[in-house]
């Protein structure tokens, strides 16, 4: 596959390092996205049902 996005993605990654902890920026983005989706799933209220059944 060619194209600037593919070229960008196949370029060597950037890594964040602190002591023994090391993570790629891509993995960090995915983890932040996962946590954000989890937080939204907890915080966003359920849509109101048109009808409730007793």
């Amino acid at each position: 596959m060619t194209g600037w996005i593919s070229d960008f993605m196949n370029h060597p990654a950037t890594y964040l390092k602190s002591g023994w902890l090391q993570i790629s920026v891509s993995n960090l983005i995915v983890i932040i996205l996962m946590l954000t989706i989890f937080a939204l799933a907890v915080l966003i209220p359920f849509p109101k049902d048109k009808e409730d059944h007793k």
Partner: protein
Amino acid sequence: MSVSKEAKHAFDAAPWTGKTKRYDIVKEGSIAVALVAIMAIFLSLFLGSPDDTPLTFKGWAISNPDNFYATAVQELSGSSGTATYGAPYNKAADGLNVGPLWLQKWAGVTRPIDTVNEFVIAPLSTQVLSTDIASALATWKSAADSQKHDWAVAYDDAITKAEGKISTVPAGAYGPVPVLAQGLTDMAKGGALDAALLSQGGFFQTDNTKQILFFGDGAYLDEAGTTANLQGGTWGMMNETGRYPGQAWLWLYSFWYQIPPFNNENSKPIGTNADAYIMVIMGIMSLGLILIPVIPGVRSLPMRIPIHRGIWRQYYDENGIKRRKK
């Protein structure tokens, strides 16, 4: 069954008489599948997939011929990583253990690999050879096993003393080994070794065991792993080539390799057997995850950390259900 258990069973089995909500699980499942499919198609169209240049014997032999040559000699002398690995490839070592549990040894040799023949002699035998290589091959095949071993070990030692610089290795009683190693290096440079090692006699070639083991014995694969940040000591298990996200969910497996004693190969007994110990630790932790419903304290965590009440807060508010007192 006691009376209280019968009553509990009857209570659990009785139809729900409380408030209900309309819920279409098929609709939700369909929407989820459709959304994931659209995202997968959209992202793959724009982002593609990891497209790192394949590692080949040709690339190895051209980029670092001395290392390839020295590795070929190690395969002949039996000093390579594969030749000394133990099960499942051979009986050269006992392998990893956890205390009295010799897991690797007990599993036995299930994929025998003879590095001399499978990595060097057999691939060379598939080629139309020059006179000197054909002669060296014939000499090797007709020699006694002890003689072959002496030639290869002498040359392997000489290369080690010369720190891998083949051109500086002094002459010695190496028999046909230098010619065979040069023949395999030339074969690799031409690209023929890749095909020879992959060929298994079947139509579809899917077993790359031999190539990966041979690669692993030299510096080529190791250097490629370091360049792409895929080494175990740098959270490589979580990473992918290029800027693609990797296997972030493997962070806990990878974590152990970053801390002592697992990250110190000289630490006995755990560091030298880190893979086996980490496998046991993760096995116990996975068992703990499966057994959460029956572990006292852990199973009641949702009551102490009531995230579910946050998700279903409308239901709890509307019905005035307070938190149960501890």
